């Protein structure tokens, strides 16, 4: 060895994999100190015994889970006439087709790595094993089978993971293929898995038989799963052919809700005579006259007269509606007696509301008009909005063809969805307007918005529902026969809008002053500045808050039982346990209802997280 050298590497050290394995994991995460070891053991015992009693409760043979499976129809659509069930399936079918097409249009497909799948398998298998081992002794039926299944799943996952370690994080398997596999699996489950179903005969005897999960619905559900796959395939085929497919789909989604609710589910009895003698003429006259005005007002030259004329038009139209609303018959003994029937008033409003809508369009016309093409597009938008408004009037005024036993044609989960979607869709524009009003520089507008928000927020929703269901009918007695679901929708909408307004206002406040100045500096009008610059940024900033609000709105719909509507929770807690066969099943049904709520809110919060990631990308 040369002079002065202390050390020379003789064997070249190769890189080693980091220490891993269950023992290492436990040492690093559960037992890294004395205190952590004790804590882990104590918490582990608590969890084990908690889980054990929970599993025991769920698997107890005395649980009346059959009360839920036997009443699935009641939970979903309440008393919707069985003869018209095809309408329900058509409604679900519309949603399924749109889902499939949208999944293709927004390219949700991706790749999953083998590692992710094996991890899922391991988790699923281990859970099965744990559940089977923890279940109390008297529930041994099927335990061995469950342990075996768990061991097989977990073991295959582990083996696969070992075998594919090299390429474990390489995304390789298409999510579309996985989803297809999932659909086939679901279909197979529908046809094979059996659950106890309790039947009560006329003489009062009961019999519990084993039936497949979806007794009467397995065929429609299987068809719908197929429809989902087919519509996805169609979407993939046309997504590169049809330009603006996404925009079309957004429009269809927006239209689908009123179409399902008012046309498919409600089955209106439309008098085509009235349509051709009243609706079509109104559409043509108002549509053409306002359309021409919009085309002129939307011209590229500026002028304050446009705003003055539109504002005047709006004020006059609103006054016209308000002052003709109450036409009292002074000769009648009752002070609330009205000269005109509900249908008459609706008829008059059918002409007046379009005039208000036209004024709103005229106000925004200078901001969104411009070149000939832009103006024509704007007039087209106006005609579409007008057609929607007039057809809603006709559909709302028509009587229903359904033979209903109860008051409303929606109940159970379908009512919960109706209220939640209508509440969100309607309260959104109102809330945004209120938020803008509260941030406005005009003191009167600000005062009105603030008063509304503070008044509505400080009173519980139940109170508003109650007021809505009782007072609304007093105010509008005989004018418009607003049926109970619409009253609930109005109350929920007005309530939710106040909260939404505060959320949006928070977003508006988060926008730096420089954004307003930059928009001002290029000469944008107030409407342009709001729609193009501040609002999109504000809404994006408050997506988490908005999602939270939608979730709480979805759950708050359960309060409508206070005004006599049969929503999911009410049916689960009161209606079904009231059946002689299902007395004492209230806890089971509540758990089922909770699970249904959870599935939808969890799906929603997950997809909104996806949306946030998507929107966040590229801007930061």
């Amino acid at each position, binding site marked *: 060895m040369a002079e002065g050298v202390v050390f020379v590497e003789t064997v070249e050290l190769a890189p080693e994999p980091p220490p891993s394995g269950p023992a290492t994991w436990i040492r690093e995460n559960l037992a890294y100190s004395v205190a952590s070891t004790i804590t882990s053991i104590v918490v582990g015992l608590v969890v084990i015994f908690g889980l054990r009693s929970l599993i025991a409760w769920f698997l107890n043979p005395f649980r009346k889970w059959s009360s839920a499976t036997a009443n699935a129809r009641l939970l979903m659509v309440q008393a919707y006439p069985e003869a018209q069930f095809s309408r329900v399936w058509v409604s679900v079918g519309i949603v399924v087709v749109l889902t499939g097409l949208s999944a293709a249009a927004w390219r949700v497909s991706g790749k999953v790595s083998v590692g992710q799948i094996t991890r899922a398998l391991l988790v699923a298998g281990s859970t099965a094993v744990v559940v089977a081992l923890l279940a109390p002794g008297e529930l041994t039926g099927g335990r061995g089978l469950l342990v075996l299944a768990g061991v097989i799943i977990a073991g295959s996952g582990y083996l696969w993971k070992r075998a594919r370690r090299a390429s474990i994080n390489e995304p390789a398997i298409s999510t579309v293929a996985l989803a297809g596999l999932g659909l086939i699996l679901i279909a197979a489950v529908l046809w094979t898995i059996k659950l106890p179903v309790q039947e009560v005969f006329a003489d009062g005897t009961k019999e519990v038989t084993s039936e497949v999960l979806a007794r009467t619905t397995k065929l429609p559900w299987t068809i719908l799963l197929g429809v989902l796959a087919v519509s996805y395939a169609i979407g993939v085929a046309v997504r590169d052919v049809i330009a603006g497919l996404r925009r079309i789909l957004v429009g269809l989604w927006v239209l689908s809700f009123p179409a399902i609710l008012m046309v498919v589910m409600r089955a209106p009895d439309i008098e085509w005579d009235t349509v051709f003698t009243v609706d079509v003429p109104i559409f043509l006259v108002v549509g053409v006259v306002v359309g021409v005005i919009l085309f002129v007002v939307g011209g*590229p030259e*500026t*002028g*304050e007269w446009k705003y003055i004329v539109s504002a005047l038009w709006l004020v006059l139209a609103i006054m016209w509606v308000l002052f003709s609303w109450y036409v009292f018959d002074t000769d009648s003994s009752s002070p609330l007696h009205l000269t005109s029937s509900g249908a008459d008033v609706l008829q008059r409003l059918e002409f007046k509301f379009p005039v208000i809508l036209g004024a709103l369009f005229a106000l925004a016309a200078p*901001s*969104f*008009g*411009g*070149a000939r*093409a*832009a103006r024509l597009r704007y007039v087209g938008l106006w005609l579409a909005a007008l057609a929607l408004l007039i057809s809603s009037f006709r559909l709302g005024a028509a009587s229903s063809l359904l033979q209903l036993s109860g008051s409303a044609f929606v109940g159970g989960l379908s009512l919960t969805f109706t209220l939640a979607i209508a509440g969100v869709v309607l309260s959104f524009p109102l809330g945004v307007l209120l938020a803008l009003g509260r941030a406005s520089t005009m003191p009167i507008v600000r005062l009105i918005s603030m008063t509304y928000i503070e008044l509505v927020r400080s009173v519980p929703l139940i109170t508003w529902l109650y007021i809505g269901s009782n007072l609304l009918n007093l105010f509008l007695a005989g004018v418009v026969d607003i049926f109970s679901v619409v009253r609930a929708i109005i109350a929920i909408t007005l309530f939710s809008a106040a909260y939404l307004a505060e959320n949006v206002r928070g977003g508006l406040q988060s926008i*730096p002053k*420089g*954004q307003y*100045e*930059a928009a*001002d*500096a*290029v*000469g*944008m*009008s107030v409407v*342009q500045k709001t729609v*193009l*610059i501040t609002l*999109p*940024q504000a809404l*994006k900033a408050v997506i988490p808050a908005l999602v939270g609000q939608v979730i709480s709105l979805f759950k708050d719909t359960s309060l409508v039982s206070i005004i006599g509507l049969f929503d999911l929770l009410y049916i689960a807690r009161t209606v079904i346990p009231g059946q002689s066969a299902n007395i004492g099943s209230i806890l089971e049904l509540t758990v089922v209802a909770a699970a249904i709520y959870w599935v939808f809110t969890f799906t929603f919060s997950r997809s909104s997280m996806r949306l946030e990631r998507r929107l966040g990308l*590229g*801007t*930061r």
Partner: protein
Amino acid sequence: MSDQAIIDCRGVKKWFGDFQALRGIDLEVSKGEVVVIIGPSGSGKSTFIRCINRLEVHQEGQIFVGGIELTNDVRNIEAIRRDVGMVFQSFNLFPHLTIMQNITLAPIWVKKQSKSEAEAYGRELLERVGIPEQSDKYPGQLSGGQQQRVAIARALAMKPQIMLFDEPTSALDPEMVKEVLDAMKELAKEGMTMIVVTHEMGFAREVADRVLFFDYGRLVEAGTPEHFFTNPQHDRTKLFLSQIL
């Protein structure tokens, strides 16, 4: 007002509460002139140029831009803002829009140009400021210097008569200052009327037709760059220049 003056300010005064930010500014700028305003912070130079497109409202005096007086009349304000482009210290690009959308937004919605026409001119402008390849990115993906050049392109997209620059390089890293100043020099060469608030003395010396020195809301001294940097007259100007040069 002389025939040539495109901007004419007479006795402009402005208060923020009790504090008087502008104590009576008189200024005429003729077409094609490049005016650089320097001065210590708080001297009212930013406030003054923000009055020219009415981001700030002056309380006394008169401002004429292209012969139109700035009053509360919305039509006048919108007409003047279409003719006056502005570049801010903090860029103020719209973060939710791509670079091309940032540039074409105002031409499409305010000037009512067709989308294709606006985009063609937008591409030309991006070429001019030297970043044609960035048009589909978002502002957050660009460096400060690139963002400021986009901001210049955005202002130019409206084909303004006058450009206002409010400390356009103050928020930039030193190595990015040059690329922005180069874009501005290019603009000055093409004959754009510009008012520039800046601390870049090199730029003032090279490009300015006239340099103004503001202090305590007053216009203290005005002159050609040579006069200004070699032979300042006012004591306050001398002190300021001695501190920064």
